[in-house]
């Protein structure tokens, strides 16, 4: 089921090359591949530096505010990239409040660098995606034995040398995994790059589909994007598959963080606080400001309640189905650890790396085919018209969400199942329970917490998803993300603020879960 979209996209490469494709090939394709590549590299580098640097600070040093900043730095994960993007545009564009204020106070010639540029997009995505690296790096640094570091120090290495030659290499697998996640997100993003006028492959899929009405060329573009995604998956796999640096004997005590004083402490607090302000406090504050103004001006869509309900129902259906599938897959893997089952599980978890635009194209082609071949047959059989089952309903959209986010629920469920000792299974079976009963009566109650987490994660991811939703939404069916896109594509920042603030609020749920988990695992 999950392979169908991928195969549909890949098979498009064998279609006849239309006029649009040839044109793209001659003019833009090279540039699109280049700009996508540069964006992914830029965001990778940005998140690596920011995420690793902050993690290093909070793990190895004590400074004022550390205990709060340590978890607060995860908060920007709750802000969708496209929301961050439009808030910054609204604040910092030439006609925005910041630059207008600067010109008034410093003179007419004062200009900030143009935000609608490569560096602007990289900055936005770095601010939103650095927590992936930060989270993984923080765990890696904290779990490192202090012994290796102390040994290096006693051999006369400076702090910097020790960090470069001991700490970083030991944490490398975690860092690469975090950076790979950030890169996947950057590549899959549509809303930010479209609002900033930065052309990427994802943005081009949408533009060719809706601007040139050429599905085939859009699908062929999507397959180029798919190649990118596969490269990132490989990168991430290799980083995880690489042998961990072994630590001799039991893990020694972690290195005690050293106390920072004076300027050092001030600098550490300031850099954490500055990141937090830019990536969370400022955008959320500005959104709240706009939302208040929107309420005052009566700009809340009259159907906002219905919009919210619809978004939540859709996300809930996707989340529950994803978890149901995840339990089935994970349990099958537990019962029969055959290579086939393991392969299916691995394959299913690839979806997260596939950009929504690719999945949307891949889902729609087969569904449209089903609608136009199977439906007429059914109608003849049933004797009355049934209309369009798939392309005319939210089924296609839910399917796309499942393909994309099954990995998220699968990982969570597998992790919780893995904590249950196999002897419990044996005990249940020896008491005569069949596999299904054992699952229902033993495993499910035990992994309730993990299941809840999985549901919340998929629920929020689904709510935030934009490109697939835009391409597949059923007619007259808006969601919060679509509403934000429609407003921001006409640069109505204030009108977009209420749905955006709602999304950020909902996005805080899984972040709170994450924060609690990471605090729980603290020393």
């Amino acid at each position, binding site marked *: *089921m999950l392979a169908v979209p991928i195969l549909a996209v890949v098979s498009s490469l064998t279609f006849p090359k239309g*006029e*649009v494709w040839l*044109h793209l090939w001659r*003019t*833009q394709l090279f540039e699109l591949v280049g700009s996508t590549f540069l964006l992914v590299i830029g965001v990778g580098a940005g998140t690596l530096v920011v995420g690793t640097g902050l993690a290093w600070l909070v793990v190895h040093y004590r400074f004022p505010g550390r205990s709060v900043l340590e978890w607060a730095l995860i908060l920007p994960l709750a802000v969708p990239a496209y929301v961050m993007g439009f808030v910054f545009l609204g604040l910092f*564009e*030439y*006609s925005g409040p910041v*630059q*207008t204020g600067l*010109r008034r106070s410093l003179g*007419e010639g004062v200009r900030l660098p*143009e935000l*609608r540029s490569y560096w602007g997009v990289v900055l936005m995505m770095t601010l939103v995606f650095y927590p992936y690296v930060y989270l993984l790096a923080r765990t890696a640094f904290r779990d490192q034995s202090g012994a290796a570091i102390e040994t290096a120090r006693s051999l006369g290495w400076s702090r910097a040398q020790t960090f470069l030659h001991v700490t970083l290499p030991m944490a490398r697998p975690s860092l690469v995994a975090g950076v790979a996640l950030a890169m996947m997100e950057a590549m899959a993003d549509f809303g930010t790059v*479209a*609002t900033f*006028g930065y*052309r990427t492959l994802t943005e081009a899929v949408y*533009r060719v*589909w*809706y*601007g*040139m*009405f050429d599905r085939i060329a859009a699908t062929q573009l999507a397959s180029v994007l798919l190649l990118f995604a596969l490269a990132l998956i490989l990168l991430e796999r290799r980083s995880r598959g690489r042998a961990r640096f072994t630590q001799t004997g039991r893990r020694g005590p972690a290195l005690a963080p050293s106390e920072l004083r004076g300027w050092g402490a001030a600098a550490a607090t300031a850099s954490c606080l500055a990141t937090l302000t830019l990536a969370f406090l400022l955008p959320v504050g500005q959104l709240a400001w706009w939302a208040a103004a929107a309420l005052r001006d009566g700009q809340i869509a009259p159907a906002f309640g219905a919009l919210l309900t*619809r978004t939540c*129902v859709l996300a809930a*259906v996707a989340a529950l*189905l994803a978890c149901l599938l995840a339990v089935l897959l994970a349990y099958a893997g537990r019962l029969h650890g055959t290579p086939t089952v393991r392969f299916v599980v691995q394959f299913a978890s690839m979806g997260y790396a596939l950009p929504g635009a690719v999945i949307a194209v891949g889902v729609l082609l087969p569904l*449209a085919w089903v*609608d*136009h071949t199977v439906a007429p047959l059914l109608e003849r059989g049933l004797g009355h*018209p*049934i*209309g*369009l*089952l*798939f*392309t*005319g*309903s*939210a*089924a296609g959209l*839910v*399917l796309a969400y499942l393909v994309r986010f099954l990995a998220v629920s699968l990982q969570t469920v597998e992790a919780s199942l893995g904590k249950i000792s196999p002897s419990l299974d044996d005990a249940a079976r020896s008491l005569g329970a069949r596999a299904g009963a054992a699952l229902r009566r033993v495993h499910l109650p035990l992994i309730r917490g993990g299941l809840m987490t999985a549901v919340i994660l998929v629920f929020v991811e689904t709510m935030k998803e934009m490109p697939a939703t835009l391409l597949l*939404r*059923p*007619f*007259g*069916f808006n969601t919060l993300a679509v509403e934000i896109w*429609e407003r921001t*594509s*006409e*640069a*109505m920042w204030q009108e977009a603020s209420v749905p955006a603030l709602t999304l950020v609020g909902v996005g805080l749920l899984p972040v709170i879960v994450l924060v609690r988990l990471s605090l729980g695992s603290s020393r």
Partner: protein
Amino acid sequence: MSAWAWTLAVALGVGGGFGVGMGEAAEVVVYSARSHYGQEPAFEAFTKKTGIQIKSFGGDSGQLFERLKAEGDKTPADILISVDAGNLWNAARAGLLSRVDSPEIQANIPAHLRDPDHRWVGLTVRARTIMYNTRKVRPEELSTYEALGDPKWKGRLCLRTSSHIYNQSLLATMIKRQGEARTEITVRAWMANMPTLINSDTKILEAIAAGQCDVGLTNTYYLGRILAKDASFPVAPFWPNQQTSGAHVNISGAGVTAHARNRAEAFKLIEFLTSPEAQQMFADSNFEYPANPQAAVDPLIARWGKFKQDDTNVAAAGEFQAAATRLADRAGYK
């Protein structure tokens, strides 16, 4: 997979698609891409006058097009209302629209705002014209679209990105009128002035007001919307090419779908929408110009005076859309 997909389809079909029942008596189903999503005062007037109910569904042009195509002969839609002639032309070419024509429509709507093959008809006119900062630019400095390529505008010009259909239609009409080679020279001259590219007409107007650039190209109704809120906004339209081809115009317009179930009612609605009374309501709701020259113009935009429209048939926007996109790519216009 199919079992749960079926369940889902049934469960969500209620919220998503809609069943294909036979239409009730005396109703028209409209798919509208206009920004009001069918909340048109003119529709209410029509229902009051004829008793025919109007059900309307909104979406963007591309989506409505895909939707109609996917629904094929099962579509519940009787009328497609879309913005930009290019979108209507595409729908007609894909066989989604049927003939809509009568002496009344011909008398109400000038020929260049209708499909030469009578598959769609313009309802409102949206002029895409030069906008300038009234504190920094004197109207005498402006003349034509082409003259924006003059080096005196270097670093002072704001344009919308070329991927947007409004600009594609502007270039397409130019290509129809004067050929690709001359149009490309014009676009290259614009690009040589290092324009600031902004993907929103509203933002271009704000950038002109703030002094980021001094001149730009936008649709007039965006300025209308801003002026309605802030009368002191320091931007005014300039009507270009008045000695030659006239200002570029585009339309929002309507066509009857190829598989309409309520054909007679749909036809009646379109005829009504071209009449002077409905025209005024339809255009005023968004500060657009009525397509019918007999209809009164909103006082806010009447101040901008009468202007000569480019009388190239707006169908050119569709015919040369692909050529325009390719030209923009060649000329480095992003």
